[in-house]
């Protein structure tokens, strides 16, 4: 796919178009929304956005990895990762299907 990349600027523009706020304020609000989501996840909390999807923080145990170039074994420390689980609505939209069940 040769799509373009959508960035914060596009989100700000969308907010500016749909809500009657100034460009500066739209940008500030997009920032606040993202910041709030990031802060929540950094605390280990799940962020669930209905009809979009949920972001969940998971803990991974230590395991032995391998440098694929050299073949040398290296321990991978226990760590936290964040996963995104898309909702059925989002999956349907992406496939251009009619949205059936809400979740």
């Amino acid at each position, binding site marked *: *796919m040769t*799509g*373009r*990349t*959508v*960035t*914060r600027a*596009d*989100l700000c523009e*969308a*907010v500016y*178009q*749909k*809500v009657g706020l100034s460009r500066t304020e*739209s940008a500030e*609000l*997009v920032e*606040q*929304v*993202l910041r*709030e*989501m*990031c802060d*929540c*996840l*950094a*605390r*280990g*909390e*799940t*962020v*669930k*956005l*209905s*009809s*979009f*999807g949920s*972001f*969940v*923080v*998971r*803990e*991974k*145990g*230590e395991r032995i990895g391998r440098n694929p170039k050299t073949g040398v074994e290296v321990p991978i*420390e*226990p*760590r*936290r*990762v*964040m*996963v*995104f689980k*898309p909702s059925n609505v*989002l*999956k349907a*939209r*992406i*496939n*251009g299907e009619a949205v059936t069940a809400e979740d």
Partner: protein
Amino acid sequence: MIKSELVQRIAEYNPHLYQRDVENIVSAILDEITQALSRGDRVELRGFGAFSVKTRDARVGRNPRTGESVEVEQKAVPVFKTGKEMRVRLNQSPVTGKGKGKVKAAAQG
């Protein structure tokens, strides 16, 4: 945190806005991301992560209950890759659990 709680928090920071405006702001953001992905575009949000779309080939699946073969059509799935800054933030405190599974959220929401 769910969407309504996110809306409520943002509304608290912005007492001059109606809750309805904040709801529209949050939906505008999520709609824009959804629309971009359905066009096949990528969405990159520095400090958070990037969304993209991957195609899964058509395959022959099986109904696990009946064992019957079913044709699964080619489909597109959204994928998310956590950004560098977010990965660092998630690991600021040492991981205490022995891994595997969901994290118990720290104290208050």
